[in-house]
């Protein structure tokens, strides 16, 4: 967890298309150290794609991407996107963690090994130290007795907590969450939200894509509302939810409210 007031993530004029579909349309976003940013928006608005571009799972088509002020990708004079070298990208990857909607734990590794394997075999840190840190992380996640369990023996909520611990074990500067509770039953959602709240209290820098509006309002410093690959509105969390400016955000919030009262319609 780094110094306050430094910008960790900086995305400028990001563009991304899949075939002829424009998914990100001139997106700019800064995230400072210690900040918690929530991203909301209707399905298909490009939230996941934005996280996937920020975590280098997808390549941008245009714009630029910086971590800690260092260029990771930029657009050259002829409008072509240029990424840093493979080695440089490897170093950049150590700066962030990503928590997936469906966990993506390694099923053949024990919980302990899921958390420690990358630290030991990618970061080449001493085993003893990594294990001790992992024990502490497990404790923090309320899973101190699960180190030897296999992922398949855990509930969805427990698996997601392991995946958060796995990401934290590499000591990232910034942690991304892509709908971390969407694959979970409502009663398991609370335990994940509690963990994220705890991280926010420690000033962990986080970007969270979520549909949990009350949670976003409470835990985020800033909310970004996306629609059709554009940032339509952004601002302090409470203001954005309580006094939305754009019609689209108003419509979106209304719809969520109806869903919360009547359940999400089966599509």
């Amino acid at each position: 967890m780094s110094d306050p007031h430094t910008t960790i993530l900086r995305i400028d004029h990001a563009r991304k298309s899949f075939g002829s579909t424009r998914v990100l349309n001139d997106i700019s976003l800064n995230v400072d150290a210690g900040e918690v940013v929530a991203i909301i928006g209707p399905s298909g608005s490009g939230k996941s794609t934005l996280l996937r571009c920020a975590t280098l799972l997808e390549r941008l088509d245009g714009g630029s991407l910086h971590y800690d002020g260092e260029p990771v990708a930029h657009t050259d004079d002829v409008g072509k996107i240029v990424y840093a070298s493979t080695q440089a990208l490897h170093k950049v990857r150590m700066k962030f963690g990503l928590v997936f909607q469906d966990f993506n734990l390694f099923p053949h590794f024990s919980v302990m090994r899921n958390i420690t394997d990358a630290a030991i075999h990618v970061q080449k840190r001493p085993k003893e130290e990594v294990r001790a840190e992992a024990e502490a992380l497990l404790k923090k996640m309320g899973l101190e007795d699960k180190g030897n369990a296999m992922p398949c023996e855990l509930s969805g909520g427990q698996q997601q907590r392991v995946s958060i611990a796995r990401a934290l074990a590499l000591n990232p500067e910034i942690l991304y969450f892509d709908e971390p509770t969407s694959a979970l039953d409502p009663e398991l959602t609370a335990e994940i939200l509690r963990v994220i709240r705890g991280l926010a209290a420690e000033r962990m820098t986080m970007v969270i894509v979520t549909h949990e509006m009350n949670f976003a309002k409470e835990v985020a410093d800033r909310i970004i509302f996306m629609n059709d690959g554009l940032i339509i509105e952004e601002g302090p969390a409470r203001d954005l939810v309580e006094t939305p400016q754009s019609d689209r955000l108003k419509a979106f919030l209304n719809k969520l409210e109806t869903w919360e009262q009547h359940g999400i319609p089966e599509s």
Partner: protein
Amino acid sequence: MSISTIVQMLGEGALTSLLIFGFTLVGSLPLGLLVAFGRMSKLAPIRWLMRFYISIMRGTPLILQLFIVYFGPFYLFGVSMGTDYRFTATLIAFILNYAAYFGEIYRSGIESIPKGQYEAATVLGYSRTKTFVRIIFPQVIKRILPPLTNEIITLVKDTALAFTLGVAEMFTQARAIVSSQGNLMAFLIAGIFYYVFNAGVAFIMERVEKAFAYYHE
């Protein structure tokens, strides 16, 4: 000829069968992995080449492949290889043939691993090689054990085809004994040998599957 003499003679042949079996596995299991990589290569020509190779190996009889490998050097290049070449030719044909089958099994296993596993590994900083070795391949093994077992059991029975090149493996021996004795005792005993051999294979593969049963997906 007493039963114990027959058993002894067949035992010598069985040793050769076992050698064919062992060398074929040692050669074709790793080669199959290369075939799978070639089949999934980013480079289209390599992909087509592997596809062609696999289709030939699967689309023509193994016995024909044995003959081509054995007689090929002479008829194609005018090179005489001597009688020792029988055994080598058998191994070459078997390894090439089984590598194609194993390659397809590996490929189906590799392709069945969810994309999320690669993505999680990538974000955690695993290199491509480390991702494959540490994350993907161990899961592939577990998934392909059943088809692998089938193929290995077929290989045990296929070793008998080496008789067509005159390699003194068990079936060759059994045939010689049967024609000199005028009864089927040697075939019966050879059958028992193959059966026990495959029971052993099945037993070992079951143990391996159990060893991988410590998790499910």
